[in-house]
């Protein structure tokens, strides 16, 4: 197993906005050709403010959208060229945890179905086996087995996030993309979920790509940080390095803007 899971080379994503019949479409450069790598077992954070391209990067890695240019190599293979069976295999290895605990779970499905869906669609497991695995996952994320039959609206934000985490673990992925997983949560719940994520990483040998705008959180859990600004990577450093010796102006601006408590 190689040390590098992802090699991202010159990744570009442009969006075209149609301005009407007689005008040329406007081009929005969400990603301007960024390059970075992700090492196995690390927590790599993408930070930046709105419009920087961190969410777009996540979408491209998860194949929710296709890049306009550049390569994404997963264990050496270009994922943009994957076909059917290989695509299925890829999907099992890379999962996502969403930001909004309220819209990321199907309101009409029971918790058990939500967590079990990846298994139903991607494996040949029998229903009983799926249920067993779902209950196992629920226990791992600190959920009571009774909750299997309940609906999302019966839970709080933090609990729903746990459901989302259980779902992400279902297929035993190697990588989990965490898209602002704690931004919508209360501070105390945020701490619980972060603790959980760290525990799970240890237990299941996960690699996280962690997207956030909250530098305090990022500092706490990351190994390396990628700072993004309007589609470009401004700086890529280990956590210690970034906080002690920020080089780019934008990084310095970002660090000084964090409202933190200096005891």
């Amino acid at each position, binding site marked *: 197993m190689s040390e590098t899971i992802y090699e991202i080379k010159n990744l570009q994503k442009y969006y075209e906005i149609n301005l009407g019949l007689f005008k040329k479409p406007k081009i929005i450069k969400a990603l301007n050709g960024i390059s970075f790598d992700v090492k196995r077992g690390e927590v790599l954070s993408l930070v930046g403010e709105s419009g920087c391209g961190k969410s777009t990067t996540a979408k491209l890695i998860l194949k929710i959208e296709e890049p306009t240019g550049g390569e994404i190599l997963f264990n050496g293979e270009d994922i943009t060229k994957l076909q059917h069976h290989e695509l299925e295999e890829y*999907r099992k290895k890379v*999962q996502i945890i969403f930001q909004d605990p309220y819209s990321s779970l*199907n309101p009409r*499905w029971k918790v058990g179905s939500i967590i079990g869906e*990846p298994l139903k669609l991607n494996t040949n497991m029998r229903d009983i086996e799926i249920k067993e695995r779902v209950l196992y996952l629920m226990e791992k994320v600190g959920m009571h087995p009774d909750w299997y039959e309940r609906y999302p609206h019966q839970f709080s934000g933090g609990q729903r996030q746990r459901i989302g985490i259980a779902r992400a673990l279902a297929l035993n992925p190697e990588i989990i993309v965490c898209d602002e997983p704690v931004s919508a949560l209360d501070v105390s719940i945020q701490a619980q979920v972060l603790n959980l994520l760290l525990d799970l990483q240890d237990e299941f040998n996960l690699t996280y790509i962690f997207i956030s705008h909250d530098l305090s959180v990022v500092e706490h859990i990351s190994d390396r940080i990628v700072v993004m600004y309007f589609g470009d990577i401004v700086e890529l450093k280990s956590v210690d390095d970034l906080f002690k010796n920020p080089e780019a102006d934008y990084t310095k601006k970002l660090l000084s803007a964090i409202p933190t408590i200096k005891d």
Partner: protein
Amino acid sequence: MENLLEFIKQYKKNRAAVVGFIVVVLLLLTAIFAPIVAPYSPNIQNLADRLIPPMWDAKGVSSHILGTDDFGRDLFSRIIFGSRISLMVGAISVGVSLSFGLIMGIVAAYFGGKTDLFIMRIVDIMLSIPAILLAIVIVSILGPSLFSAMTAIGIVGIPTYARIVRSSVLAEREKEYVIASRINGSSNFRLMFVVILPNCASPIIVQATMGFASAVLEAAGLSFLGLGAQPPTPEWGAMLSDSLQFITTAPWMIFYPGLAIFLTVLSFNLMGDGLMDVLDPKLKDK
């Protein structure tokens, strides 16, 4: 199912809606048990007993509660059997409108782009055709019958469902739970019908309930014009039109079928209102 209990609790708050629901259930039971409830068969003529008024009138008899019509047929029994027809008309028309409308709406909203434009233009064209005109066209092709009436009403109702379903699906389509299912490998079909559609159920249910009422009314109207049910079918609208000539001499022949239409339409609408009140706020999650 605690969801259902909560739903019932909320629904009960609206007294009118509860009344509506009860009447609808009674209607359903009447239709199902018509042969038992009705004292006579609806089409038996008894020319000796023509035009007898309802039993509380001086000239009425106890054996015909609401009197008889010009062929001596028991009005009460005809109205009872008429409920079967009205319910069938409602169910089938709504069924047709809903099935086609739903498919059109989902496909348009899910695929977007040119598919959406194309389907919605068809919907626009359908909306511009008045029901009566369409009914006349269909009737001239198929001949006047209840079947033609139901077809016309069904077709005319399609755009409403298409639009409702489309806007619901558009709203849900971008939500993260849909993306989650998509990433997990869900096929387009599954995304449309298993993932998204259950979340669009509420407005469809409300519309179907209200639509039932208007279908009944429209069928009565078409039958009244002679374009729908043909004699001797005891359809309420047809009964109205047959009885117009007796409006001064035997007003009960018009009043009671009219009352039946009125009560049916009203109770479905009240039920629909009640459903709307309960289902809508629940849509606002959090």
